[in-house]
């Protein structure tokens, strides 16, 4: 009996002691936290945004140092007139004529975490799906570097993503101007296309860098063709990049043929001689049996150089080029070359040069 009382008393005493200990350590911990962390926290404003991956991200604001893990992000930041905030760039973007001369941090598929850490960025911008969070966010977490995921390569989300990026960089005015310009061009094209009667739409065969590899649903090219009012003859293919037969293309009888040429085959920006494009063009029109195709008969076979046109606002320029090739009379007043010049000179700050379409008038 006595023993029991004694023990319960001890328990109570122990309980009080433990609570007191916890209270003291919480207060001490809080004081320590305030003393050590508070100054660094209050030193910079932060902003919480929802990125394209649908996650809440709290980042220092305005963002002053960015690692762009995608060409699209780097190009958009340059177009926003904020070239100097880029402190790290991918190996692909680094070779572009508009790229800032900063540290290369690998590629979006194999980023070098140490290289990212070494340039002390406020944020890293990458695609929604790549790299995987366990390869990027998890590894950057010990260094307190935040990741913002923006695609910037899809025309349907481009404008809202650019707006968010402008907000992060505290460049809302430049962003507004840029978006208004390109959105105006985009809506001008798509609204005119939407008035086209289905029977007036042209059938298009689009060939990728590889011979006889067409574009199917889900590919970027297919989407651009649709926005430009073309009917992609392989829009219902079971795969994204179907390999087709010569016979089938002849049978489909497209009214326009477009062929994309990769930058590694032909560097459009630095090109002065169009002979390589001419050779590709001739190899297409001379494919056996293709003289039966309307596009070949009517001289509507075109080569498009993909470099610089496949990222960020370059997509709108590309859309303009293709829309005009498909419907020259509908878009008689549209000047893709002028848009292209504006994009290169006024947005990216590089001289307008090169050969982008063949045959060019």
């Amino acid at each position: 009996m006595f023993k029991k009382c004694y023990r319960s008393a001890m328990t109570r005493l122990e309980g009080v002691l433990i609570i007191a200990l916890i209270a003291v350590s919480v207060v001490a911990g809080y004081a320590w936290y305030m003393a050590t962390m508070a100054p660094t926290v209050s030193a910079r404003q932060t902003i919480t945004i929802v990125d394209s991956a649908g996650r809440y991200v709290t980042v220092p604001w305005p963002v002053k140092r960015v690692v762009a893990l995608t060409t699209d992000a780097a190009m958009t930041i340059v177009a926003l007139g904020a070239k100097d905030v880029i402190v790290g760039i991918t190996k692909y973007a680094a070779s572009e004529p508009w790229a800032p001369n900063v540290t290369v941090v690998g590629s979006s598929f194999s980023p070098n975490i140490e290289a990212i850490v070494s340039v002390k960025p406020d944020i890293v911008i990458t695609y929604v799906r790549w790299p995987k969070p366990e390869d990027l966010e998890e590894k950057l977490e010990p260094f307190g570097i935040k990741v913002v995921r923006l695609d910037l390569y899809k025309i349907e989300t481009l404008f809202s993503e650019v707006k968010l990026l402008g907000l992060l960089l505290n460049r809302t005015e430049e962003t507004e101007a840029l978006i208004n310009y390109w959105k105006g061009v985009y809506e001008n094209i798509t609204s005119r296309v939407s008035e086209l009667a289905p029977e007036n739409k042209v059938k298009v065969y689009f060939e990728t860098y590889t011979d006889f590899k067409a574009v199917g649903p889900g590919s970027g090219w297919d989407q651009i063709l649709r926005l430009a009012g073309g009917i992609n003859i392989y829009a219902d293919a079971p795969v994204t990049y179907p390999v087709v037969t010569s016979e089938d293309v002849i049978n489909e009888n497209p009214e326009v043929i477009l062929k994309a040429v990769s930058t590694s085959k032909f560097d459009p920006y630095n090109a002065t001689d169009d002979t390589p494009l001419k050779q590709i063009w001739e190899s297409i029109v001379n494919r056996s049996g293709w003289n039966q195709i309307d596009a070949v008969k009517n001289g509507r076979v075109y080569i498009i150089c993909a470099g610089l046109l496949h990222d960020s606002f370059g997509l709108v320029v590309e859309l303009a080029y293709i829309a005009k090739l498909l419907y020259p009379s509908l878009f008689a007043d549209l000047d893709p070359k002028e848009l292209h010049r504006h994009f290169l000179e006024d947005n990216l700050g590089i001289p307008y040069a090169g050969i982008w379409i063949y045959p060019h008038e």
Partner: protein
Amino acid sequence: MSKRRVFVLMLLVLALPLIVFISMSVGVLPVSPLGLILASLSPNHEVNPVAWAVIWYLRLPRALMAVMAGAVLAIAGVVLQGSLRNPLVSPFTLGVSSGASFGAALAIVLGVGIVGMGAYLIMANAFVFALLATFITLGIARLRGMTAESVILAGIAVMYMFSAGVTLLQYVAREWELTELVYWLMGDLSKASWHRLRYTVLAVIVCIPLFKFAWDLNVLMMGDDAAKSLGTDPSMTRVACACLSALAVSIVVCMTGPIGFIGLMAPHLARLVVGSDHRFLMPTSALIGALLLSTADLVARTIMMPLELPVGVVTAFFGVPLFVHLLLRTRREIWR
């Protein structure tokens, strides 16, 4: 064991921590474990938190991953070469890598997996299909009495089947998925983290029982009939070795992707050093495998800094000439 062998073994044992240390001292940021130790011993104990985080969260897990993955691949290689009596066998002969590749491709391209695990879908899928491939191989081989030839031929058949599956998935993949898949198929250690290291430890643990088979493997090298007369059941040994090594290798491969050549080369290099007694051959192979992969990863990380090469490329590029050199230099027969 001759003095020379002991000497070489000692060298290997010393070289491993050395290469780990060097590997942890090299990178884009000029930080090293030595610098950290010196800083913490200095009067004001000022350790740069970034330096500490780089060493602790980035370089150490990766270095340890290289050591363990290399050791596991090498042990699996030596055990399978021994139990199947064939110098061309590697851990991937049972179809592990092609199964894993197919699983990863399914996850990357179609986003489907046998187990829905979100962020770890690719890893889980690769693991499940690596084991599946092994079981199909062993299942086919069983029908032919689990002879060495039947296991190897079944493995080759399964490998071609899953490779065809990967090719098909590559064909239907979109360009981004294709790029992601190609990166996965090249195999590298950049995914190493403390979290993933736990699974790698598991792979090492799975390898431990294999050491018990060292004597059986020695006997098996003399042929199935001789082994039977000495009391070793060839097909039992084969199944046990194949299952354990496939499990261990699957765990490694599902995290790193298929890193070729280590599992083939390390056992042969070890044979040059200690001969073909599996009691010595197995630990030596493990050491050499760990050393090779650590060195290869060091090269992969630094040769084109800040770009990283996939370590699988490096193991082949630098390993093959070394291997051929050793093979030509040695006078005695190393196999058997």
